C-alpha cells in the first residue's frame, strides 16, 4: 500500500538517506504497520474532539525577565565544526 516512490519522497522530507535495500525493507514494514493502523478507520469519529494534550493547563506563560545565557565556548563545545564564533555548515545556497 506504500510504494517505493512514496518511501523516497518521505525519506527526503525526513532528510534520511536510504540504501536501495533499506527502501524496499521499509516499504514492506511500513505497509504492514499501516495495515494494522487502518483499524482506526473502522471507528466513526466525526463528532469527536481530538486530544493533543491530556493535561488541561492553559497559559503556562513565562515572565519577560532575562536569565543568564550560556558562555559562547559552552554553546559551541559540542559543535562538529566551528568558525569565527559560529556553527560552520555547508552553504544552503551551494
Amino acid at each position, binding site marked *: 500500500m*506504500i510504494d517505493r516512490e*512514496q*518511501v523516497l*519522497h*518521505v*525519506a*527526503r*522530507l*525526513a*532528510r*534520511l*538517506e*536510504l540504501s536501495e535495500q*533499506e527502501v524496499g525493507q*521499509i516499504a514492506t*514494514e*511500513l505497509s*504492514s*504497520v*499501516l495495515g*494494522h*493502523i*487502518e*483499524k*482506526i*478507520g473502522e*471507528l466513526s*469519529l466525526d463528532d*469527536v*474532539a*481530538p*486530544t*493533543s*494534550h*491530556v*493535561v488541561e*493547563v492553559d497559559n*503556562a506563560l*513565562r515572565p519577560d525577565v532575562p536569565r543568564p545565557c*550560556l558562555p559562547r565556548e*559552552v*554553546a559551541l*563545545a*559540542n*559543535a*562538529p*565544526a566551528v568558525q569565527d564564533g559560529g*556553527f560552520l*555548515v*555547508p*552553504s*544552503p545556497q*551551494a
Partner: protein
Amino acid sequence: MTDLTALTAKQAVDAVAKGDLDPAELFAAYRAKAAADELNAFTWVADEGATVAADDLRAMPLAGVPLAVKDLFCTEGVPSQSGSRILEGYRPPYTATVVRRLAEAGTTLLAKTNQDEFAMGSSNENSAYGPVLNPWDRTRVPGGSSGGSAAAVASGAAPWALGTDTGGSIRQPAAHTGIVGHKPTYGTVSRYGMIAFASSLDQAGPLTRDVTDAALLYRHMIGHDACDSTSLQHPEEIVLPSAQRLDGIRLGVPEDLTGEGIEPGVLARFEATLTLAQELGATVHRVALPHADYGLSAYYVIAPAEASSNLARFDGVRYGLRVDADDLMSMYTKTRHDGFGAEVKRRIMLGTYALSSGYYDAYYGKAQKVRTKIAEDFTNAFAQVDFVVTPTAPTVPFELGSKTGDPLAMYLNDYFTVPISLAGLPAISIPAGLSEGLPVGFQLAGPAFSENRILDTAYALEQAIGFDATPGRV
C-alpha cells in the same frame, strides 16, 4: 553489615540517617557492582560518589543513596546519548530538572543506563551500545525501552533507577525483570532535560525493588517546573504505602482481556494475583474499555509523528554526529542515515508519512480522536471501579533476536500499557511471580493523581505475593 547492596533504598536511607551506614561505603559497593556488570546495563559509571559531605547527606531525605539514571536524562558534563549513535559522546551543558531535584534530595549519581535508541523499543535490542541482557536469563531481553535501568535494579547493581515510559517503557521492562515500575500521571514529573521521544506521552518514573522504594523516589521527583509548560503540581503529597488489607477496593478487569495472545502462564499468574486480592478483601469486576483495542493503532501514529519532529534537531549542525559532505542536503541525509538505527528510521518514516500533506486527517487527526475515546473509556471505567488491572505484558521475556524481524509482533508487547499512556494515567507494574522461571508483571492503573492509592494497593498485594526479587539465574 555484609552485603550493603542487599538493602532496599529505603533501608539504606534509614541506615545512613541512623548513622549505621556510611554513604561513601554504600556508593563504593554499588560502584564495584556496576563496574563489574555483565548485562550491558550501563553506558557510563561514575568514578566518585557524592561531592556532599557524609554528615550533610545524612540530613537529606535520600541520604546519598546511589541512583542509576536512564541515558536519555541530560546530566551536565556526563554522556547523555539516549542510546543513539547520533549523540555518541554528547555531554550536555545542563541537567534535567528531575535529576537535579533528586540530587537536591540527596541521591548520588551512580551511572547512566542503557536503553533502546531514543526510547523506541520493547526489548532494548535497539540500543546503539548493544542489547541489555535479562538477569533472569541472559539469552532473553529485559524489555524496553528502560531495559538498562530495569536490569541494573534487578541484578542488584543499582538500588533504584530512573526510567521513562511513553507506551510502556517502564512497566514492561520492570515486569520482565521482576521489579517494580511506576509510570506516573502525565505532567507530574518535569520533562525538562529528558531527551524527547513523544512529547505528549513521555513521562519519567521510578524502577525499584519494591513498592516502598517506588513511593519514596516518586515523592522527590514531582513538583511543578516553570521550564515545562505541561508540568503540573501533584495535588497530594506522596506518602509511603502501608495498607495490609484491600477491603472495599474494586478491581476492574477489561472484558476482552483474553484477546491479544496472552501466554497461559502469564494469565495464570494474573488470575492467582486476583485471587490474592480477593482474599485481602478486594472485589473483582469486568469493565468495558471498548476503544482500548485501538490503542496500539493510535499510539503507532501519534508517537512516531511526534518523534519524527522531535528528532529533526539531530542534523549535524550544533552537536552530535556529522557526516561531512559537499552540500547541505547530503550532509543532512548522510548524517541521519549513519546516526540513526533501523527502528528509529522506521518510526521517523512512519511519523513523517502520517503527518505529510494528504494523510494528516486519515492518520494523526483520527488517532487524536481515538485518544479522546480511550480517555473517555477510562473515565467511565473509574466510575465503576477503583483500578483497572491487567498483566503488564502478554508474554514472559522473549529470546534475544526472536522478534527483531517483525516490528508488528514487537509492538504487540505494549498492548496493555499503551492505552493507559494515551490517557495520561498513572499505573504500576509489580512482580506477580514466575512463569517458566521468568518474571510476570501485574499492572494496576488508576485515575489521574491516584498515585497514593495505587501505591498503597500495590503494597498490600506485594506483601501477599511475597515475591523474591533476586533473580534465580538460569
